């Protein structure tokens, strides 16, 4: 028997039974081991029905054994009688579906738990866990985990990473080269000479033997394309580390979430090594690999699945893990519905977070105070979980912690520690972005936990628990508002878990500390001073300037960084040229310390807007900077009116690239009919046909959104740009917008 210490990289079912595990050895070796491992699912129903199921299983060779037992259902007081069915992991899914088809009235449990989660329950593992392993031949004998997903500074894992990307976006032009980077090397592989290119790529993969393949567009285009080329040339492409298996391709799909259709592209998954497509990974844009690895560690999902999964799926899997550790059944399809309530109860409970209309205009020295992870803190402090009675007030619960608080507690504690480290001056600067990425990943999981509790199909969801969290959140925010007013602060805005306050003479952190302490005393929930704004401008609604909008504001913090919400710069469908103009406009005001200085920057700001407007209408802006994206909200043939998205989508269909439901279609607005043209290398656009008037309108509107709080409305911006800057601006008469309180 031999042993080694290494890191668990991947595990998956073995078609011959049991599982296959891949480890990264401390001596740079990559070790493949097998382990016998069976999984169990449970069926519950009337005794006569269970007898029939037993008879059916008798004819199913996949069912290794089955027996009657009792297990705990989360929503019932006593354990319930169930039929336990044990199978090989590779046979689970097909047997479950056969049983479900044959017996539709049967309640199934533990039927869709991912293999990595089952293994984590039994062995306490997680992706990249440091393990002590003993083995004989290719069989794993024992495994003990040496660290924990909650460790803040785990030792670095010697991961070998290869990145691959084409030299052009395939949607815009045909790529000519494949760029392959590893360590300090960069290889340019021409895509013209197919056979020799594939052989060169295979050589790199065999010699360097990467653990991670990072791609751009690898899921939907690059890897399927390379695989197709390899098949045509009868070359076995070594993308997989597992030699006898083909990569797993999960089909694309569209789903409905938060009132809109979302498109999810196809997934290209590998065995024995991990593939991450930066275009198909959550949080990749801001935090790259750190976020994906943190997600994998805490959710225990394999790295390539964790990188692609939504935070909702992540938190759901974590709740499943907690349930399994307590021998609680995990329902396959949830049957616990919403409880019956009176109309008055519904009126009381069916509410969201407390949101004010902010006091519009520019305000100086504003403290932004927010509760630290308000909803998760309420869930853990007040012990809110679907199986427990609903608390009616903020305070400690008399019951032992439920499934949800148990799942959230370590997440919450780790996030708070990481956030403290990101803010601490003692933190090593090189580590600060790393901690920030981890904290942001955990924040996403925590935020989604609240939403998931109210989701009707969530395995451990209960709408009444979700409503109770909202109610206690509103109560906490109102107590914070009352504390601020009692201490002489003016409350400018309340937004779910944050409160914006100001008071004459308060412009330093210490000035706000007594208020923070009072709020903690009154709510027993953690709170922090997020920042002090030098100035912040709350903006009016575009449709009705008498009204302010809760989440439409911008401001500059005392450290010089900016916060922007709800304007064009933050919207995904804004043309890059307009976003950049707005960004530069904010940059002009960024250095202003107060309202007086803000006014002084207005002439410079208007000159910049005029220059950008001139470049635009004179056709000097490259077309790619005018590309906008519109989401396909419904199937193409159901569009009654030919919207820009539908027009562009039809053009894409004509060239053989039909967009899928929920996908964003890139387009440029053009003159006359049909009014829009899809942005694709195979669809030529005459620059003279671009609707510059429309883009000019968007540019002026975006400029006015920033200038309005400084007293310049949209008609004045128009007057300025159409008059070529000849309009005389009287700074003396310019009035900063301040709405009456």
């Amino acid at each position, binding site marked *: 028997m031999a042993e080694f210490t290494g890191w668990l990289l991947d595990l998956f079912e073995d078609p011959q039974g049991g599982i296959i595990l891949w480890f990264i050895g401390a001596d740079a070796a990559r070790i493949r081991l097998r382990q016998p491992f069976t999984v169990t699912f449970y069926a519950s129903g009337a005794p006569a029905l269970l007898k029939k199921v037993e008879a059916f299983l008798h004819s199913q060779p996949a069912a290794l054994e089955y027996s009657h037992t009792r297990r705990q259902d989360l929503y019932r007081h006593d354990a319930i009688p169930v039929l336990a069915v044990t199978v090989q992991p590779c046979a689970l899914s097909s047997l479950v579906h056969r049983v479900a088809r044959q017996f539709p009235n049967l309640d199934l449990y533990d039927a869709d738990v991912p293999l990595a989660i089952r293994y984590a329950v039994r062995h306490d593992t997680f992706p990249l866990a440091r393990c002590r392993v003993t083995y004989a031949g290719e069989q794993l004998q024992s495994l003990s985990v040496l660290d924990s997903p909650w460790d803040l500074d785990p030792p670095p894992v010697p991961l070998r990473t290869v990145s691959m990307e084409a030299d052009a976006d395939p949607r815009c032009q045909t790529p000519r080269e494949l760029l392959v980077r590893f360590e300090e090397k960069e290889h340019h592989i021409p895509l013209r000479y197919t056979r020799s290119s594939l052989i060169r790529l295979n050589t790199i993969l065999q010699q360097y033997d990467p653990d991670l393949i990072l791609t751009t567009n690898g899921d939907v285009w690059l890897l399927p394309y390379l695989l197709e080329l390899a098949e045509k040339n009868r070359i076995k492409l070594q993308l997989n580390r597992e030699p006898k298996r083909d990569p797993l391709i999960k089909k694309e799909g569209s789903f409905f979430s938060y009132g809109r259709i979302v498109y999810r592209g196809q997934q290209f998954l590998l065995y024995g090594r991990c593939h991450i497509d930066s275009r198909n990974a959550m949080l990749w844009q801001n935090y790259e690999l750190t976020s994906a690895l943190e997600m994998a560690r805490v959710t225990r999902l394999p790295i390539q699945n964790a990188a692609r999964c939504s935070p909702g799926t992540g938190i759901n899997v974590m709740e499943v893990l907690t349930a399994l550790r307590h021998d609680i059944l995990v329902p396959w399809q949830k049957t616990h519905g919403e409880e019956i309530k009176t109309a*008055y109860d*519904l009126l009381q409970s069916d*509410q969201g977070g407390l949101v004010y209309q902010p006091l519009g205009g520019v305000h100086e020295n504003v403290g932004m105070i927010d509760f630290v992870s308000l909803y998760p803190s309420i869930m853990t402090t007040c012990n809110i979980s679907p199986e427990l009675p609903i608390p009616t007030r903020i305070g400690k619960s008399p019951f032992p912690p439920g499934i949800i608080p148990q799942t959230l507690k370590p997440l919450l504690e780790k996030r708070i520690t990481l956030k403290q480290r990101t803010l601490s001056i003692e933190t090593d600067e090189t580590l600060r972005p790393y901690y920030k990425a981890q904290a942001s990943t955990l924040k996403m999981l925590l935020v989604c936990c609240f939403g998931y509790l109210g989701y009707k199909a969530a395995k451990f969801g209960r709408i009444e628990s979700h409503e109770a969290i909202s109610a206690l959140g*509103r109560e906490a925010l109102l107590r914070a508002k009352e504390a601020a007013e009692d201490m002489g602060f003016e409350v400018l805005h*309340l937004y779910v878990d944050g409160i914006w306050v100001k008071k004459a003479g308060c412009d330093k952190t210490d000035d706000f500390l007594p208020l923070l302490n009072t709020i903690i005393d009154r709510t027993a929930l953690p709170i922090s001073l997020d920042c002090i704004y030098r100035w912040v401008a709350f903006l009016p609604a575009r449709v009705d300037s008498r009204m302010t909008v809760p989440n439409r504001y911008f401001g500059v913090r005392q450290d010089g960084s900016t916060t922007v919400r709800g304007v064009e710069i933050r919207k995904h469908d804004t043309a890059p040229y307009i976003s950049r103009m707005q960004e530069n406009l904010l940059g002009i005001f960024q250095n202003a310390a107060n309202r007086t200085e803000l006014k002084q920057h207005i002439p410079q700001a208007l000159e910049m807007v005029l220059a950008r407007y001139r470049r635009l209408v004179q056709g000097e802006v490259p077309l790619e900077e005018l590309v906008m994206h519109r989401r396909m909200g419904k199937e193409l043939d159901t569009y009654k009116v030919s919207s820009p998205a539908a027009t562009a989508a039809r053009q894409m269909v004509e060239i053989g690239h039909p967009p899928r439901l929920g996908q964003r279609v890139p387009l440029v607005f053009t003159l006359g009919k049909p009014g829009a043209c899809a942005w694709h290398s195979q669809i030529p656009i005459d620059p003279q046909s671009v609707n510059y008037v429309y883009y000019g309108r968007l540019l002026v509107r975006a400029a006015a959104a920033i200038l309005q709080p400084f007293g310049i409305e949209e008609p004045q911006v128009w007057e300025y740009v159409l008059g070529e800057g000849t309009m005389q601006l009287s700074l003396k008469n310019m009035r900063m917008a301040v709405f009456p309180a």
Partner: protein
Amino acid sequence: MGRTLPSANQYLIQEQDSFSSFRRALRRSDQLALDDLFAAARRHSAAIAFASHALPFEAALLSMLLEEHKEVMRLRQQVEELQKQQ
């Protein structure tokens, strides 16, 4: 996720729409004043929602009255200041 009842803002918009015939029959100057009243109610949509009143239009009317009274207080203060200056 998702709500059964309309939010206070949605409710106020629906309520304003239901008065469109009433608004149409008013003089232009009165129409603008009516729009101001509904805008005043929307400034207190958080309080209207929090009240969870079975008849939320009462809370909306109270919000309009509140804004009117604030305006009266502001004007009264201005008058007093002007009187002091004389």
